[in-house]
């Protein structure tokens, strides 16, 4: 084959270009740590990496929701268990009052019951992160208020559930965990409505019975508060179940996050060891090509004859 000037320069240029391109790509992959720098590098992996990134985001949002629900659940649990303690105290006050005699003592009992009522009001209006935990979705509204003269309780919240997404939903609305217990379901709704009963009102009634010394009413209150105590403990069990579910979900989410991160890394991260080896091979080849080019440059008749 005749080798001519145009040929050798064109081919040399193309080859040098190719090798430089290869070195450029590899060094870009190593320095960025990513083997995908544009969709065209590997369209399928690129779109999978994209979806995986968004899946990770969604899992992180689930995790944040689980943490939120756990915090909320803890606040609910502690409010309810304190409330249950208060009910026990109220019961024992009622018990002591039935066996005690004398005006001065009943005044003491009444004021003790008053203290319990105050604390109970605080617990029923407990907040988590500035949100009322027992007012349904109306978390900016204080759920319970009491008319100090009649003892009538008004429930200002609603019965709706605050739902947060804690897992992928298969069907519409699925994967949602209800975070809250609505106040009316736990403590009872407004007592002004027909058939209304309320634990706070029950404590108020005890206090009234104690100050008036109405022993029949005190006996009634003792029974009612016993029922209330059972009711609160049932709610505590419900919360406990939800909480253990959340803990499981948290563990699962953490595992899934680790998995997906591995998947994502497989799609988009550079295998640094392999890329480095390839780079050094490409460099050697490039150096050799450069050397041959300068060598060939000297290999012409014009430089030899004089």
């Amino acid at each position, binding site marked *: 084959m005749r080798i001519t000037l145009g040929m050798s320069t064109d081919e040399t240029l193309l080859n040098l270009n190719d090798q430089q391109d290869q070195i450029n790509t590899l060094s870009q992959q190593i320095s960025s740590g990513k083997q995908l720098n544009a969709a065209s590098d590997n369209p399928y992996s690129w779109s999978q990496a994209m979806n995986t990134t968004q899946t990770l985001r969604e899992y992180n949002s689930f995790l944040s929701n689980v943490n939120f629900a756990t915090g909320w659940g803890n606040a609910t649990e502690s409010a309810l268990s304190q409330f249950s303690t208060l009910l026990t105290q109220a019961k024992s006050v009622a018990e002591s009052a039935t066996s005690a005699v004398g005006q001065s003592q009943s005044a003491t009992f009444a004021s003790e019951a008053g203290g319990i009522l105050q604390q109970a009001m605080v617990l029923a209006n407990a907040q988590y992160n500035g949100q009322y935990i027992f007012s349904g979705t*109306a978390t900016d509204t204080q759920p319970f208020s009491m008319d100090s003269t009649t003892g009538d309780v008004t429930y200002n919240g609603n019965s*709706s559930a*605050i739902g947060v997404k804690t897992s992928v939903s298969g069907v519409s609305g699925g994967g949602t965990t209800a975070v809250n217990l609505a106040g009316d379901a736990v403590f009872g709704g407004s007592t002004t409505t027909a058939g209304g009963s309320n634990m706070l009102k029950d404590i108020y009634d005890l206090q009234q019975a104690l100050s008036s010394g109405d022993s029949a009413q005190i006996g009634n209150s003792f029974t009612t508060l016993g029922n209330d105590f059972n009711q609160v403990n049932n709610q505590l069990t419900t919360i406990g179940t939800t909480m253990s579910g959340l803990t499981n979900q948290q563990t699962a989410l953490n595992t899934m996050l680790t998995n997906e991160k591995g998947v994502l890394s497989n799609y988009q991260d550079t295998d640094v060891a392999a890329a480095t080896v390839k780079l050094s091979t490409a460099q050697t080849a490039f150096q050799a090509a450069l050397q041959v080019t300068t060598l060939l440059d000297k290999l012409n008749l*014009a430089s030899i004859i004089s």
Partner: protein
Amino acid sequence: MASLALVLNTAEQTLMNTQTELATASNNISNANTTGYARQTAVQVENPAISTLHGWMGAGASIKTITQTRDNYLEQQLMNATGSDSQYTSLASQLTSIQATASDSGSNGISQALGNFFDSWSTLAQNPTGTSQQTGVDSAAQNLASSISSTYSQLSQINSQFSGQISDTVDQANTLINQISQLNTDILKSSAVAQPNDLIDQRYAAMDSLAKLIPVSFSTNSNGSVNVDTVQNNSTVNLINGADPPTLITDSSGFSGGQLGGLLTAQSDLAGYMNQFDYFAGTLITEVNKVTTASSLPDVFSGTDASTIAANSGFLSGQSSDTVSSVAQSMSALQDQTVQFTTDPGQPSSTLQQYLGSIQQTIGADTQNANNNQTYYDSLKSELQSQQQSLSGVSIDEELVNIMKYQQIYQAAAKVVQTTSTLMNTVINMVQ
């Protein structure tokens, strides 16, 4: 005496011949790097012999013509490869910039805005009455809408530049067609005298340039002129027929090769991507508004496609905590739901995010394909170019060797002149 004069004549012609040959070699070296140049050779033939008493006596040699070395078949192959190469070079460069504009890796671009939008609803579900959470939803919706519409408007901008580039390319092609046709006429005129190598080189260079713009096939007529055809809408269209006035390109559509073909493909590809963004935006608007409408809330998004999408503000204001809570829950659930992209025929239902992924995959695959083709045609072109250069190109070494040969012949002929002159002197002195 007659023979001595003949020797002198022959030697003189040899000196002239070698000068022509040297000039040709020098011209070759001088044009070694000229585009379209094919190496030239001075063709030397034997002079008719002279009849003498002793028989036919040779009478030296003379330069008959100066030819050039070309292979039309190889050149046609090379033009085809050149056309495909520049088609995919132009397509790849267009698609690369489109790809960069529409880039979405999942952690930036529309995907991220969509993710933030869903996250904001998820946060709102935690605190339906929270003012900052509601503002968060508002701004995430604004952000999503502007991210879609700005991507779309950037793509529209690229799209609007196509028509200018296409008409520029057609103008360039028409200029070259005129030039080739003019060269055809000039070549016909000059051929009466001798083969006009320089004009043929220029014509080849012009055809090569034309092949970069549009698909070109050519055939050489016996009188030295060429016919040039192109392919438009899958049928052959004659552009130049010998020295006849050329047919210029008036309709820029229907070319599938050369730079023009690359631009047309990129244009139609881009239109497809823009449609996909429209389908995405349309479905997003419908699905999101469906959720709010179900709870009698105002629409979140207005508009119908990627260019008109805009987020309304205050769609949550004055709503009961109950409504907000249930909308927030349904909206966070929307990210996992597969929806039917009814406007995109043949597209299986997928989640909104997956559809964005499929757009990226389409763009990526087209770009990758263009890049691969470019690499392939680059090396094919280079291979054919070396074959063509191997035949038509100038080898400096070869020319130098030839020059040394001509130098020796010239020296020898000069020696003959000197010797003959001495002989003649001897003869003249003999007479004295």
